[in-house]
């Protein structure tokens, strides 16, 4: 989908996926479960909030079939993810790690001004 060049920065990687930032397109690329999804930063943060809003307690304890999966969709980005409880936990870890890195870089920019951060 994209080559790892100078403008691609790794934000966070786990055994289940990775998140990269592209400085050419100003997009965040999420690689998870055979899919690569590209988000604008605001939409990435919204997506993270959506994943966090999933009631995992209900998924664990409710025996009804409809709680076996959670479907997270985006019409704008044309994807639909069918996520199990494990997927949700793993995705949360990945998204939280990426958000931490994004926040940290933002803080560095704030403190260091216009210095180039590699």
């Amino acid at each position: 989908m994209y080559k790892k060049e100078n403008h691609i920065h790794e934000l966070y990687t786990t055994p289940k996926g990775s998140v990269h930032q592209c400085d050419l397109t100003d997009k965040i690329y999420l690689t998870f479960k055979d899919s690569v999804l590209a988000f604008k930063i605001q939409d990435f943060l919204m997506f993270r909030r959506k994943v966090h809003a999933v009631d995992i307690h209900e998924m664990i304890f409710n025996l009804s079939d409809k709680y076996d999966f959670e479907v997270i969709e985006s019409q704008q980005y044309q994807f639909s993810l069918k996520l199990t409880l494990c997927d949700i936990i793993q995705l949360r870890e990945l998204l939280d790690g990426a958000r931490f890195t994004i926040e940290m870089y933002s803080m560095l920019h704030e403190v260091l001004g216009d210095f180039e951060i590699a």
Partner: protein
Amino acid sequence: MKDLLRLRTSLKEEIEIILNAQCKMEAEASQKYLAMASWLDRNGFAKSAEYLYAQAEEERQHFLKIFKYITEVGGTAITPIVGEVPQEYPTFKSVFEAALQSEIAVTNAINKIVAKCREVNDYATEDFMMWYVTEQREEEKNARRALELFDLIDSESPTGKFVLDKEIAKIGEAENE
């Protein structure tokens, strides 16, 4: 590496979240006032019902003002989901007790936003929220005045409820003129 977070907005995510929460609270307040107005109307208190219909509209304007501010500064405004609001009230007075309680809760929430803005150095949002601080002082005063009228006018007297209904409708008239 670019700072994507600040490329489009200076609004911090935590401020965006509490502003969206405030949108929900204002929208809920609007719905509550609407339910109160409906109760008053069907129980014969036509004039105070009109007063609360106007309050419901005002709360909706408060909600929209924050909603538009979020998008204006580059954030994502989320249409709030408003749950069930109480539709029944035991007495005429209890409607206004609930109204005051709701206004105090809104004031507390606004104070928390201002405190958070100061904590993260978001002075633009703080400045924006100061309008709400002044507005809430007025809203609380009006809600308290309604309850004061219940102390001044004996609602059990022959024309008590009728007079109360008329007097409550006059609250806030001075500032609207």
